[in-house]
């Protein structure tokens, strides 16, 4: 069996991480499933484990003037209790897993797991979240779209851990979140969607769409969004088909045991369309 350590402070965690490779264990709701084995046998972790769930230092939600700061070990259930947590993120969390899982699972774990179907990723992309990655030596703030570098790959190095998730405060006119799962709870997403926009003087001044589970990472296209900035709603509506086909060029849905390419593509189209219909 591998070494298993319950760390007492962030400092201890970082110093251990500087020495060798560890598995960072937050709620364990991904790790236990991924490392499962036969019953009545210990979990066969391939590397030593750092249990971090008890780090009180990392359990918080703090509000600043421009940003919201979420400690990495804050559970999903705890996040739902804060008024300051944006609605878009709350809507996603409310539909994640089930109460028992949400009571131990964390946002950092959802990010660390880097699944293309991770449900918090989609709103976090739309919210322009920043991921704070810390090592003994330094701390980096990585914009979420740069944090994911490929299928199940992040920019995190072995000596770093996520200590905080930072969300800029936004005032959107309206947002839309949709999870298209296999059922109403404990479901993996077939497609997920988080849109937001703002309008000033009858013109669109902010327009964001993130789409999950249809490519190796979440799809967010700043270039497409830019095309709508400065447009009136009427102009935007006329561009709807063009916008939809631009998004379709950057999705690569798959056939699997849960759904198929046709469905994922059609629903992506419908969701973009439904979101654009909310512009008003």
């Amino acid at each position, binding site marked *: 069996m591998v070494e298993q350590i319950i760390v007492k402070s962030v400092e201890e965690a970082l110093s251990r991480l500087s020495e060798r490779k560890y598995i960072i264990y937050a709620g364990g709701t991904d790790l236990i499933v991924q490392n499962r084995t036969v019953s009545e046998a210990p979990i066969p972790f391939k590397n030593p484990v750092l249990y971090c769930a008890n780090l009180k230092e990392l359990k918080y939600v703090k509000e600043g003037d421009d940003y919201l700061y979420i400690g990495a070990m804050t559970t999903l259930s705890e996040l739902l209790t804060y008024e300051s947590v944006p609605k878009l993120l709350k809507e996603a969390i409310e539909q994640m897993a*089930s109460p028992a899982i949400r009571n131990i699972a964390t946002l950092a774990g959802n990010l660390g797991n880097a699944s293309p179907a991770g449900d918090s990723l989609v709103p976090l992309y739309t919210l322009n979240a920043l991921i704070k990655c810390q090592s003994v030596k330094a701390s980096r703030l990585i914009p979420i779209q740069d944090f994911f570098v490929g299928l199940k790959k992040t920019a995190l190095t072995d000596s770093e851990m996520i200590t905080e998730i930072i969300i800029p405060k936004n005032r959107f006119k309206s947002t839309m979140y*949709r999870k298209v799962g296999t059922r109403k709870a404990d479901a993996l997403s077939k497609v997920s969607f988080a849109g937001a926009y703002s309008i000033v003087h009858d013109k669109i001044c902010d327009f964001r769409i993130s789409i999950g589970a249809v490519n190796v990472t979440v799809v967010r296209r700043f270039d497409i969004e830019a095309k709508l900035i400065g447009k009136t709603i009427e102009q935007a509506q006329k561009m709807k088909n063009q916008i939809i086909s631009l998004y379709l060029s950057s999705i690569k849905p798959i056939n699997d045991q849960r759904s198929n390419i046709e469905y994922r593509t059609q629903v992506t189209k419908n969701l973009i369309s439904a979101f654009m219909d909310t512009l008003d």
Partner: protein
Amino acid sequence: MADISKSIEKVDLYEKTSGEAKYVSDFSYDDMLYARTLRSTVAKAKIKGIRFPNLPEDVHIVDYKDIPGKNVVKIIFDDQEIFPTEVVTYIGQPILLVVGKNKELLEEIIHNTIVDYELMTPIFDWVSSAVHYHFQKGKPEEAFQKATKIIEYVYDTSYQEQAYIEPQGFIGTYEEGKVTLIGSIQCPYYVKNALLQALDSKGDEVRVIQATVGGAFGGKEEFPSLMACQLAVALKKIKKPIKMIYEREEDMISTTKRHPSKSKMSAAIGENGEILAIKSNIGIDGGANIGLSGVVLSRAMIATTGAYTIENIDSSGDVFLTNTVPNGAFRGFGAPQMLFAIDLFIEHIAKDLGIDPLEYRLKYLAKQGDPTSTNGLFRDPIIMPEMIKKALEISKFKEKAKIFSRPNVSKGIGMSWFLHGCGFTGSGESTHINALVKLHKTKEENVEILIAAVDMGQGVRTTMRKLVASLLEIPIEKVIYDLPDTDKVPDSGPTVASRTMMIVGGLVARCAKKMKDSWIPGEMLLEERYLQPSYIKWDEATMTGDAYPAYSWGVNVVEVSVDKTTYEVSVNEIWSVYDLGKAIDERIVIGQADGGIVQGVAYGYLEVMNHSNGKLLQKNFTDYIIPTSMDAPKMTTVIMDNPYPLGPYGAKGVGELTLVGGAPAVAKAIEMAIGKKVFSIPVTPEKIMELMKHE
């Protein structure tokens, strides 16, 4: 006396909620070994050889060469080997056991064992019929010749996995020549009889004990016999306690499921739009061996006209063998497939003829005195008209149907009517089972119920005790009903076919009445054996006569919304009305009703399982989607009394009835919501998208 239906506390409530109940995985012995299974990774092949890594001395291999008796799992057809001698016929098929102390080591050994296969051509198409049945009622050919119109549709159903929360498992010991197995099972005597044949043993050399069972749904009817035979062979060889419990994924890929089916339905329509005859042809996928598939097929075929009476019928069907996991018993046992087909078919005929489906269906609803599909007789009162009236009322079906039928409402309401034959099909109860029950009064004046019926969560430990206590007018605490042990209880038959309360309970009740009439202080032992009522006649060869001694009836109404953006279905509410004779305990019936309808509706729209070249694609609960409590809507269940003279207090079957009408009801509701005919379940969002494409 209080009404027997009045609910009491479930007798195992405390032990289950406190965690005291002992499931098979909670048992262990000193010096215990584990058995793990090496499985076929190919759909069909000859095994040329097996190369093991270096095996430690205390690791044992158990295979076909170790079987003392016949290398056949005794079920109905002798076509399943305990361990393959030469050829494997499906992916996941057990080839041999690796037995030893350290489970992780066993895993490693299995991982590093190489089976040399000589591949053969597997069959996945439904071309190889192993069982073919055919029966007729009336003169269907003439009716088809007279028809002014013929309407034909094909209905498809898919796999369904039982999804019991506790996987299959046994633990066994070998002492002084005797093999004892404790298992998660539905049918202790099926297991015992299979072991006797496999071990070539005499009756008292094998003992089977039921552990607390964490769900079964038919999945623990015949499948456990295979596992038990393998383990017993290992016990006889190694002579040490061995535990063998499946992991979820191996359970899902290798155990029996509900048979996928295809039903070709055609109706001869007369000049006034009346149905002159119905012809049905159903094919079911048996998987790699027949097992119980023939019996499943016959139940499906007997349900050809469901809750309706049609004068002329031609019904045929086949079990097709394919190189896929063998399919078998599952709550409903063939009926859900055909009831889906027929209930939608009649609806579709009405729609095609431009007649209100409800009116049209009422015309054909079966009545007391009608001949059944197999020319038996519906002897007992049928109260479906009252039940339908009630269902319409509580669900506001007509008002809603009117609103929902308008375009763009995206809501729908569907209603199914159905029946379920109680007990074994045909003469099974008398020829196959011949149930025996005993009632034993001890010196301490406690009354022990000696039957082999298994409580797998459905509540029979509560209802049987309640039944006996009530008849003897003694407190329920004085009635004992332990988990069955074949060394102690007689063979009262398997816990299947919604037969336990009606048939076994009926015998127990007769015993109790006799005990009461002849009551003396001190020990008493009474027994009762099943006798087929003389008026029940069944001809197996032509499939004519009374297929069942009695029928339970039901109406399900399901309301759904379909999301236009994502094609997702939400079940908004469910209403059910049942005639199950008499509820022995209302809450227990409601428990069956709630679970049954959720499982039945999910079969219709949610639960997806398919295979690709013999490999099942959904092999855990991440991918095989069963409903959660969030998916289960508000449910209203009405039980209407209609006592059956031979059932205890008038009770008939309950367990399966509550499942079989779910799929047609939800499928019809979805039809209304999307304005398209549905021919295939589960009606997934992916299918709804396809249907809606062709606007």
